[in-house]
């Protein structure tokens, strides 16, 4: 065995090893990572099944579904993206706030016109100002904010439900009446969220923007609604234990009270339907009712969540095409009992619950009544700054840390300060 032979043997081994490595790499599936938050198994199980199905049909793509808490989407994802990391796709609710990170997948989707036709009005919510063509993703579900009532309590109290056109004051009055007659501890409970306050505030005449279209939070309409919320807390119509229980802009929902039938009237939104159907069950009848009115409108806030791309490549395009297809979306929406964000989708809702069916009809029927200001606010990139200012300052006023006058002043200052930090100046 001479030296040349050993050298040849080593060379052959190296070449074979390299070829094996290259072929392994070239045949390896492309990973597509999705960061997904879901409202429990109700949403997580259907999406996981769809992903499994996709992976089985597409051996060249490996979709990895990371199911995370909602907080991770709101707080961790923006930091990951700012650091140049993050998933390929994420399910997002701060639709405009993250728009600088979205990738344009137009070249990689099979039919860009399908997205325009199916999700048209929502696509602008994701785009940067001035952009009218990019495709970043699609609306997974649409949501509408609005109230629910414990119908059983109304029946027990012998009080009739109010119809369309009833005002916020009238709903508060009947909720108090029902609570008193039935011994229910909390007449009214709202999600602790600026988004939830905004529909009613717009109904009271809030405009949210000045004549140039720039954010201008506090006006008479917003003052009227926030004052009403403040008064309800002081009068005991709403419990301070929810809004006053946490700090800053932290979201808090009264679901535990609602499920325990301790609330007559709950202000939340369409995304709760599936949860109520599961959690309330036959304990009591619950109905969604039309958005109460103010002097300016009778509107809720539109919203929803979208699957948006942060990387553009053929694999991401293929995954988006699959998940946004009518077949997959219809199946998903039917299982999670939500309002579709697709404009032309027939959904066969998989529920026998009459309360859920009624609520789905009520919220779907509310979409055409949503005020234009509400749509503009939802589409604005800085809407979260305004929502958070409302909730943190109103929360402070409710527990007595400042007056409502001071809270309104602070709301405007907070918005101004944050916009300055973001855009300079």
């Amino acid at each position: 065995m001479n030296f040349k032979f050993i050298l040849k043997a080593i060379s052959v081994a190296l070449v074979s090893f390299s070829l094996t490595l290259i072929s392994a790499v070239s045949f390896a599936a492309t990973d597509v990572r999705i960061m997904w938050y879901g409202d429990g198994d109700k949403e997580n199980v259907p999406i996981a099944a769809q992903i499994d199905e996709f992976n089985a049909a597409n051996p060249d793509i490996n979709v990895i579904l990371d199911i995370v808490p909602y907080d991770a989407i709101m707080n961790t994802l923006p930091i990951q993206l700012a650091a140049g990391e993050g998933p390929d796709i994420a399910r997002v609710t701060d639709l405009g706030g993250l728009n600088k990170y979205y990738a344009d997948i137009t070249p990689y989707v099979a039919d860009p016109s399908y997205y325009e036709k199916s999700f048209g009005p929502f696509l602008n919510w994701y785009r940067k100002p001035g952009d009218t063509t990019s495709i970043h993703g699609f609306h997974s579900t649409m949501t509408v904010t609005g109230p629910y009532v414990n119908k059983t309590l109304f029946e027990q109290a012998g009080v009739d439900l109010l119809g369309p056109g009833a005002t916020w004051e009238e709903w508060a009055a009947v909720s108090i009446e029902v609570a008193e007659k039935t011994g229910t501890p909390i007449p009214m409970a709202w999600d602790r969220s600026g988004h939830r306050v905004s529909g009613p505030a717009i109904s009271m005449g809030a405009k949210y923007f000045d004549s140039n279209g720039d954010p201008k939070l506090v006006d008479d309409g917003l003052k009227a609604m926030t004052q009403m919320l403040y008064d309800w807390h002081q009068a005991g119509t709403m419990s301070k234990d929810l809004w006053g229980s946490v700090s800053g802009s932290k979201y808090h929902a009264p679901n535990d009270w609602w499920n325990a039938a301790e609330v007559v009237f709950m202000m939340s939104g369409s995304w709760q339907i599936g949860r109520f159907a599961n959690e309330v069950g036959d304990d009591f009848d619950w109905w969604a009712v039309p958005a109460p009115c103010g002097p300016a409108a009778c509107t809720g806030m539109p919203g929803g969540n979208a699957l948006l791309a942060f990387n553009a490549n053929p694999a991401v395009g293929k995954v988006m095409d699959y998940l946004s297809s009518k077949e997959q979306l219809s199946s998903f929406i039917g299982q999670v009992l939500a309002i579709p964000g697709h404009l032309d989708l027939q959904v066969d809702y998989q529920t026998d619950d009459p309360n859920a069916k009624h609520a789905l009809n009520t919220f779907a029927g509310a979409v055409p009544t949503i005020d234009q200001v509400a749509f503009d606010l939802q589409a604005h990139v800085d809407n979260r700054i305004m929502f958070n200012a409302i909730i943190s300052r109103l929360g402070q006023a409710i527990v007595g840390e400042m007056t409502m006058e001071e809270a309104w002043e602070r709301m405007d200052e907070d918005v101004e300060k944050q916009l300055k930090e973001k855009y300079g100046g």
Partner: protein
Amino acid sequence: MENIRNQTKIFFLRILNIPFAFLMHAIDLIMWPIQKIIGVRNMPYIFLLPNLIFFGLFVIIPLGANFFFSLSSGDELLFAERELPTTKQYDQLFDCESYLNPNTCTEDFFWRGVYNTIFFVVFQVGLMIFFSVLTAVILNKKIIGRGFFRSVFFFPVLLSPVVVGLIWQWILLKNGAFNAIIESYGGDKVSFLTDPSWAMASVIFVSIWAHMGFYTLIVLAGLQAIPPNLYEAAEMDGTSRERIFFRITLPLLMPNLLVVFILASIKGVQTFDEIYVLTGGGPGTSTSLIVQYIFTTGFASSGSVQNFGLAAAASMVLGVVLLFLTLMQLYFSRNKESKHQEI
């Protein structure tokens, strides 16, 4: 026989020693030339280097980055995209008409955090020292089940702050265990966590419960170090129990109490997780401390601007406070050591 056994033992030890000898020779191959170049006197620096590299990487560099962040503005994370240098964040933090009234400050949440932290530290540390001494004095006596009680008091220290927060949330919530007991005796429910007048007291209580065991242990060690002959002499003189405690126990415990005071103050200023789980900083901002302000401003803005610069500036201010407390601790512990040496 004994000789054979010893030889076998030595043989196996030598076999076991082979890898170590090999390793030491390998290290020697690297170290010998270095020693030749820099000299024996400078070799300790070489041995400290690995630790210093990690310390620099994970402490010094982040500290420097934090300082530079505090001198920048914008909502971008990368330095290249941030506006630098600016004292805007510090100006904003300290912009107050009256420092005594947070409502007059631009960053009122920061100043509420400062005042809440001061209040929290004063009462938490004061009460904790009191209860630690009380518990340690009792546990130092020959009582039945002393070992068991020492373990019981130390046990909460082993729990994660999140677990502590969750356990006490279940107990103190309006529909929690404690209110159930109050109601069963005909009392009215108390909003321990959602009433501003109760919330701070509740978090101080929980914090003392969670950390007292550790400080009790330090005080107990101090009590056991007091020479028993001092007590015997006092008893022979007919000194009262109170006088023994105030004239012998307490003065001799003072060095330990100083350590407890400073360690508890540092820990108190840094408190975040258990309160965040317990009350979320609420109601309003009544239990929101400085660290929560930093966390919320920098990382948990829920869709608002993540103001890394402002958070960094606030953490620099917090860093100065902690540095002061650490220097105090170093001063007193060195003072204690030199007194021991004098004795």
